[in-house]
């Protein structure tokens, strides 16, 4: 560890603008949002994944991540979140490599479907207009989303996750300074 990298330049304003971008992404699945002021977290975390983490996680949200010691230390220091040993017990799961299976994450219960994990999934690139065909709440007709670097077999896992709805895991995709989201109710078809 070579000195701790800073978090948000302005913790109040940057957390708000990041949240609004994520809210917009979650409300309009497949639309790509650019974060205005992401931090520069330690590699391999992307600025977007770092920003989402700082904006949403804290001492009340157990975090599981696979991004190495520097990233863990950074998250612990700036967000203060307890690190979960098991992804199944985490409220936020941040994956830069192959993520744990969606079915291994907390999906909530019928009475408390909101008590489900959010997967912050770092991918290589996010582009609108081509790729997957998304439909569901938040989408007027169809949104297209091209995800470079989605994990193998993701769509099959997603279909199983969607079938749990209203239970299920929600996903926030991060690439560079961009985010897009897949709430559990979104239906995805290969483009």
């Amino acid at each position, binding site marked *: 560890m070579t000195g701790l990298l800073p978090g948000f330049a302005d913790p109040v304003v940057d957390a708000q603008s990041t949240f609004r971008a994520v809210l917009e992404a979650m*409300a309009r699945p497949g639309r790509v949002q650019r974060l205005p002021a992401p931090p520069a977290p330690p590699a391999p975390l992307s600025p977007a994944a770092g920003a989402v983490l700082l904006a949403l996680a804290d001492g009340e949200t157990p975090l599981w991540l696979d991004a190495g010691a520097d990233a863990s230390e950074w998250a612990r220091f700036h967000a203060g979140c307890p690190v979960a040993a098991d992804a199944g017990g985490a409220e936020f799961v941040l994956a830069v490599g192959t993520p744990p299976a969606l079915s291994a994450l907390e999906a909530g219960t019928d*009475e408390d479907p909101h008590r489900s994990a959010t997967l912050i999934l770092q991918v290589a690139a996010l582009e609108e207009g081509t790729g997957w065909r998304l439909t569901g709440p938040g989408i007027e007709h169809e949104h297209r989303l091209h995800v470079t670097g989605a994990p193998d077999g993701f769509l099959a896992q997603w279909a199983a996750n969607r079938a749990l709805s209203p239970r299920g895991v929600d996903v926030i995709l991060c690439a560079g300074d961009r985010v897009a989201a897949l*709430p559990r109710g979104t239906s995805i078809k290969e483009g």
Partner: protein
Amino acid sequence: MSGYNFAYLDEGTKRMIRRALLKAVAVPGFQVPFGSREMPLPYGWGTGGIQVTAAVIGPDDTLKVIDQGADDTTNAVSIRRFFARVAPGLRTTESTAEATVIQTRHRIPETPLREGQVMVYQVPQPEPLFRLEPRRAETRRLHALADYGLMQVKLYEDIARHGRVASSYDHPVMVGDRYLMSPSPIPSFDNPKMHMSPALQLFGAGRERRLYAVPPYTAVRSLDFEDHPFVPLRANGRCTLCGSGESYLDEVVTDDRGGRMFVCSDTDYCGTRQARMKEAAE
């Protein structure tokens, strides 16, 4: 108001509300419990809406606050002034078109909403079933099972007794074909505006500690029956000030001999129309 954080709430509280809002958007119409804080305004005055707005707004936003459709009602003025004091940089407006965040009590503006806008509804009673089943432990179970028979029976009895559905405001809606939801006490006239709205709609109930959401372009169906379809009601008249025959009207009593007139409840809509009429006349 130095000494208070931007938008009054501390960052930890905002994060807690923000996490709950994201889950609310991901499960349209489901009431997410949240750790509602005691606000410096009384419960019933919009503490849920205020907390949602405080968690959402930033210095780049333009906030509009209405109560009964009007920007100049006392509580709307009071809430707008609260945010102007505690959120430096935030702009406030009375124009629906200019606003990025609209906090409302009891109305949806007449001017169609657009993408990029966030509606924040103040909700006194988030549980649509509460008059039929007051126990929240039980209604939680009914929502889990999507068992809304109680409400169907109630509406059916209304029709049998009155020939029509008797709820004229806070008429329950089905969101995304899954959750029964209170649209907040808006007149049923406004219900259709929720269906497939381009704007994001957020709902906050402070005292009951629940928040919920309807994402944009989401099906919101007012409960009805095939042979007794939902009919939104408005007073049969025109606005005395702007002449609108489409807007929702307030009835104003002008004397004690039955004299009355109608005016738009939406002051921005009415004012804009009056200004246009004046321009056209000149």
